[in-house]
């Protein structure tokens, strides 16, 4: 009887992961006729963080534009962006120029780096009829007044979206979206809790697909999938393998190919990571029953948030949050990655390696590109790294 239940859960999990896989890796935008009920359009946003609740309350499906992966053929962007620009900016440009993103109601980018800021200009030159914006999230979250400034940016965005959809976006609708997204964030925290406590039950690549699906489907559907997936995962009976516990950093913006994560999974337990950190940027519930829901979102950006290489915050020095991540996950080592040509990632990768040298923590440095297709050499590096860790820990 117990084995039957396990099999049923496993089958259910497989079906959920397949659904998530299909949704997560689809670079296209849902056709306006194929939108889920209650939505009238799609709002694309570049990594890292975006207040999805505002788009959701406007009846726009928020879609995190995560580049073109390793299946996209570049036909236009090569002549519009230098070869020394990161893959995600180039492939996002390609998706704009080749018409894949033509169905978006609007596209929002952020001042996370200079290449990302340029996307707004590229959009305005090439897709002039599509709303394109830079949401100026501040790089100084420490000065009193930052919450008020973010709230004003969110109100500006709210007004823009209201104009676009042709109706006001009420406080009640935003509160309702906040409640929904809080639930989704709690479920994602549960996923990561399992990763830290029982990593043999959920691999990083599986968890990644479960999270990434949320960048393309409705919050409502995502919650349903996560609830079912968590139930099935908790019923999983998998023996713990002898693998080192590592954390993975460097996946905050451009995404590593799934094959790379699978290669790491084969050699190590990835007990925490910063993959799609924007989806998990708010690390506590946003206050739900407050007078001004926009203020609650703005305050949460400052007071209830994670860290990343593209957000300066004097309360969260880069070395401190890496060490805190290692400690919280009880990790033996770190995998320090950076996307090729990603200046913030490459800078932090080096200085994190110096921090780990000083702390006597082992690490492996890897560089990736979303478009990479060969992983043999990386797999060998990972195997060697894992073996050396196991010997050291024995």
């Amino acid at each position, binding site marked *: 009887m117990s084995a039957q239940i396990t099999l049923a859960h496993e089958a259910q999990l497989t079906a959920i992961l397949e659904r998530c896989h299909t949704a997560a890796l689809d670079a296209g935008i849902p056709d306006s006729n194929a939108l889920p009920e209650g939505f009238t359009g799609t709002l694309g946003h570049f990594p890292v963080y975006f207040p999805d609740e505002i788009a959701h309350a406007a009846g726009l499906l928020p879609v995190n534009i995560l580049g073109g992966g390793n299946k996209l053929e570049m036909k236009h962007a090569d*002549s*519009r*962006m*230098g070869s*020394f*620009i990161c893959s995600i*900016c180039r492939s996002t*440009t390609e998706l704009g120029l080749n018409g894949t993103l033509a169905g978006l109601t609007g596209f929002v980018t952020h*001042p*996370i*780096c*200079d*290449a990302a*800021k*340029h996307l*707004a*200009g*590229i959009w*305005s*030159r*090439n897709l*002039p009829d599509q*709303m*394109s*914006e*830079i*949401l*100026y999230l*501040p*790089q*100084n979250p*420490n*000065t*009193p*007044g*930052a919450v*008020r*400034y973010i709230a*004003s*940016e969110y109100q*500006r965005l709210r007004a823009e979206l209201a104009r676009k959809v042709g109706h006001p976006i009420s406080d009640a609708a935003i509160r309702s979206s906040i409640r929904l997204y809080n639930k989704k964030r709690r479920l994602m925290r549960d996923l990561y809790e399992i990763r830290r406590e029982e990593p043999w039950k959920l691999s990083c690549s599986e968890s990644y697909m479960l999270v990434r699906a949320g960048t393309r489907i409705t919050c409502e559907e995502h919650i349903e999938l996560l609830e079912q997936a968590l139930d099935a995962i908790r019923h999983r009976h998998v023996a713990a393998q002898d693998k080192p516990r590592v954390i993975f950093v460097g996946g905050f913006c451009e995404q590593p190919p799934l094959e790379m994560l699978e290669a790491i999974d084969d050699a190590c337990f990835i007990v925490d990571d910063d993959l799609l950190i924007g989806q998990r940027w708010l690390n506590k519930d946003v206050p739900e029953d407050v007078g001004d829901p926009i203020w609650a979102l703005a305050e949460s950006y400052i007071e209830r948030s994670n860290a990343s*290489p*593209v957000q*300066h915050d*004097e309360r969260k*020095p880069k*070395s401190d949050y890496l060490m805190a991540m290692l400690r919280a996950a009880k990790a033996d080592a770190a995998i320090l990655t*950076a996307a*090729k*040509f990603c*200046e*913030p990632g*490459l*800078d*932090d*990768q*080096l*200085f994190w*390696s*110096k921090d780990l040298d000083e702390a006597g923590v082992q690490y492996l440095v890897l560089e990736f590109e979303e478009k990479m297709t060969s992983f043999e050499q990386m797999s060998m590096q990972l195997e060697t790294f894992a073996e050396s860790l196991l010997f050291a820990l024995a």
Partner: protein
Amino acid sequence: MTTAIAEAVSDTRHTAPASHAVWTPFNAHDEGQRLIKQWYTTLETANERKEPVANVFVMGNAIEILRSFDFHMVFPEINSLQSGVRKTSAEFIRISEDYGMSPDVCSYVKADVGMMLKEEEHPVGKIPKPDLSISSNMCGTFIKWAEIWERRHKMPSFVLDLPGQRTSNWAVRPGDAQHSTDSRWVEDQFKDLIAKCEKITGKRFDIDRLAEIQGRVNQMVIHWNNVMELNRVCPAPYNAMLDGLTYIGIMNVYRGTVEGVEFMRRLEEDIRAKVARGEGRVPEERFRLLFSGTPCYVSMRRLVELFETWGGVFAYSDYLTFAAGGMDAAELLYDTSRPLESLAEVTALAAQRGLSNQFFAHERMEKQIRDYGVDGVVFHGIKSCRFVSAGMADTRDYISKRLNIPTLYIESDLIDPRYWADAQIKNRVDAFFEALQQRGGAGPLRGKEVPTGKGSLA
């Protein structure tokens, strides 16, 4: 115009050259070099004298506040630039790459890290250790760079967050709701910064001192804008990409100082005299060009030579706008009767101007092409600078197709000599001029009519 601003303009008018003024020799290049040397000499002993030092960038730097606290200003971008000019950047970059820095990150940062690893020994002298750094979001690399100093020097860094243009055709007017929101945010940060400066220096903030400094900045900005406008005439009296660098260097390093005002005053006087004499930078000016991007400092003279031998002169460079933090418009003057509020208001506008010049370059370039009577646009893609380069090829495509203006795209780096491919660049430059000639632009341009700008004090 408020009274305080009117007074600033009036002061500058008073000091501006009159036709009967006694002419005294002034060589802007030599004087600029002397001032830069003097600045570096002062820096060398700042730590010994226990005087406060701040690392700042040329864009978004709150120099007016820092100067009111008597901070010495170190400009690490200028240090790196100077290492390129003085041919030591290759060694600094090698040291930083040996240390582990990626070949794909900003070469300015790498030169600075290389210099730090050599115990701050720069060819111009010893660079003092900072007590504070100010970086801004105008360039994302500034922030990462400041985080390196935080680690290295164990000192605080203050990130000045300056909101830029949000979308295309974004029109923010002084005093409108968006400008008020942005200014209030900037003012909040200035107040925070002032508290930090008070803590570091042990001095109380002196608002009158700030107003005094702002008054001098106003005078410099007026002269600077006149200098830029004077290059609209034909022949252009100076090369915006070469001579302009000296001018903007003084604008930045000596901003708000008596020496800075005097340099800019004499510069304007000198350029006016050249215009009156019909003296151009290039003896036989044939092509007026716009230079977009930053120069390659390790091959600076060569880069200029490649264009000037064809009679091409850079009448304008967008570098002169963004590398002055956007302070290139005559309306960007401080109201010294409300120093802090005005500092925030002007900084918010100037930052948007500086940022927009890059991120929405096509919107500004059309006007710049018209104002400076430009025959062609030269885009210089910098391998290690995304701020300048990420949208450049696309802007070029837009300008070529929409405005039917000949364009040239060349690529190298700021100070990494490995990326200067002389033969390849020369071929491209030559082909560009041949194409310009075929369009009928071969004759000398002396006497060509170029639109005159507004705001001239003459």
